[in-house]
């Protein structure tokens, strides 16, 4: 039986609470780094199938207003990937926020997306790691759809997992037109270990 489908209500609550605290800490660090107030939603925990993820990824279209960046993480057997979706985000605002004053060409825009992802996701996962006493290694962020059609990149038929635990957080930054969703996707084997950690805390 999949560990994800067997997740108990108290485990889910616990994870939500941990993420919430992590986000609070992250928000504080981010506010200091970015000099702006970060408005965070309450983390939403959901179980998703590969087709749910595929649907989410399909909303990303380089020509339109949504861009996406992925960043992998791993530590103590818990591994997963974060997806940051930028909805209606103004590059000018992003540049102002990241104190980026060079000229904004396409290269620079991509760098901004990747840097922002690294900062937002890094702050969040670090907070989570501290609470469950687990450090994580990060891969470098990867812009989706830059070299490869997203449909080719993530093919449902080739997915090596059936269910994933997804923590979803929405970020808004006060005074800036920046709105993004962070999805932390953790697959079955990792969830097992994560839940053990949660149980340990619950006891």
């Amino acid at each position, binding site marked *: 039986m999949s560990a994800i489908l067997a997740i108990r209500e108290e485990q889910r609550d616990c994870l939500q609470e941990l993420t919430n605290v992590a986000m609070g800490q992250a928000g504080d660090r981010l506010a200091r780094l970015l000099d702006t107030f970060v408005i965070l939603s309450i983390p939403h925990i959901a179980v998703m199938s590969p087709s749910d993820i595929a649907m989410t990824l399909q909303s990303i279209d380089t020509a339109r207003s949504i861009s996406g960046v992925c960043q992998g993480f791993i530590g103590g057997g818990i591994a997963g990937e974060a997806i940051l979706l930028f909805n209606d985000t103004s590059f000018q605002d992003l540049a102002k926020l990241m104190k980026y004053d060079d000229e904004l060409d396409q290269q620079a825009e991509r760098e901004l997306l990747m840097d922002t992802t690294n900062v937002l996701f890094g702050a969040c996962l670090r907070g989570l790691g501290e609470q469950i006493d687990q450090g994580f290694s990060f891969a*470098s962020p990867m812009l989706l759809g830059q070299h490869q059609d997203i449909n080719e990149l993530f093919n449902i038929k080739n997915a090596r997992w059936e269910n994933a635990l997804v923590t979803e957080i929405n970020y808004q930054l006060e005074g800036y037109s920046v709105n993004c969703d962070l999805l932390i996707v953790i697959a079955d084997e990792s969830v097992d270990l994560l839940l053990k950690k949660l149980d340990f805390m619950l006891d």
Partner: protein
Amino acid sequence: MPNSDDFLKEFHWLMDVLQDIDVGLVVLNKDFEIELWNSFMQNHSAKLPTHVLGKNLFEMFPEVPAAWFQRKVQTVFTLHNPAFTTWEQRPYLFKFLNYRLITGVADFMYQNCTILPLTNTSGQIEHICIIIYDVTEVAVNRLQLQKANDQLHTLSRTDGLTRLLNRKAWEQSLEEEFKRFQRNNAAVSLIMFDIDHFKKVNDGYGHPAGDEVIRATANILRASQREIDIAGRYGGEEFAVILLNCDADGAKVFAERLRQSIENFTVTHNGIDIKYTISLGISELGPCISNPTDWIETADKGLYQAKENGRNKSVIFSKK
């Protein structure tokens, strides 16, 4: 319990690992002064540790963009989190020239970099470590692949003889412009034209001469059009051009200019001068045209009228 001798031995081989590992390692303090410089860095930069240690990074290596790098490092100090740069954003942090005369594939080393926070004994971040990965081969392969794909993409859209868009690619553009008109209603016109009595050119002077006439027509078309206009070879001796932000009257001016340029032009093939003319049909897109095929048909009707009226003419089609 290990004695201090064991500790020293262990420390010694640990240092060997840091020295000889095949990635660049640089440790910087908060003032961006270099405190560690391993042999990868030493060998590629031709700068000895004695030369760089204690020196400011930006003074030693002016190619490192100071403002950008400081901003990056700021996030490492504040968030206690690694930061990354990839060759796709910045090809390199340190400019190391290609050193392999025979198998070297690029002029310089493409680099991915990771910037790590280093905690001191009291848990504070006072140093950062830069790790430099040599990704030249990955980068060059990817760039070559991208170039090959771009060339294939262009080839698949281009007509071999005229280097205009081929029919398939042009029709795609036609559809896009048709959809754009539904959204913004900006005037857009279509001209279809063909070479008058082209069969006679082919029969009289041979097919190579016919090809020359087609090529000359494409060149004149290319020279007359604006950059935003979309010209394609529609069929054998038939051409099509979409004029953006252009009403029927504007298209008529363009068509007449093109017609006269061709009338006044002489193709010389194997020492023989060939004179020829074209007929053009014009159709401005409007609400009574319901799809791209209709749009082509209306321009075609203008073209037939031009032919009926004696050729070497341009006619605006209008529904009567």
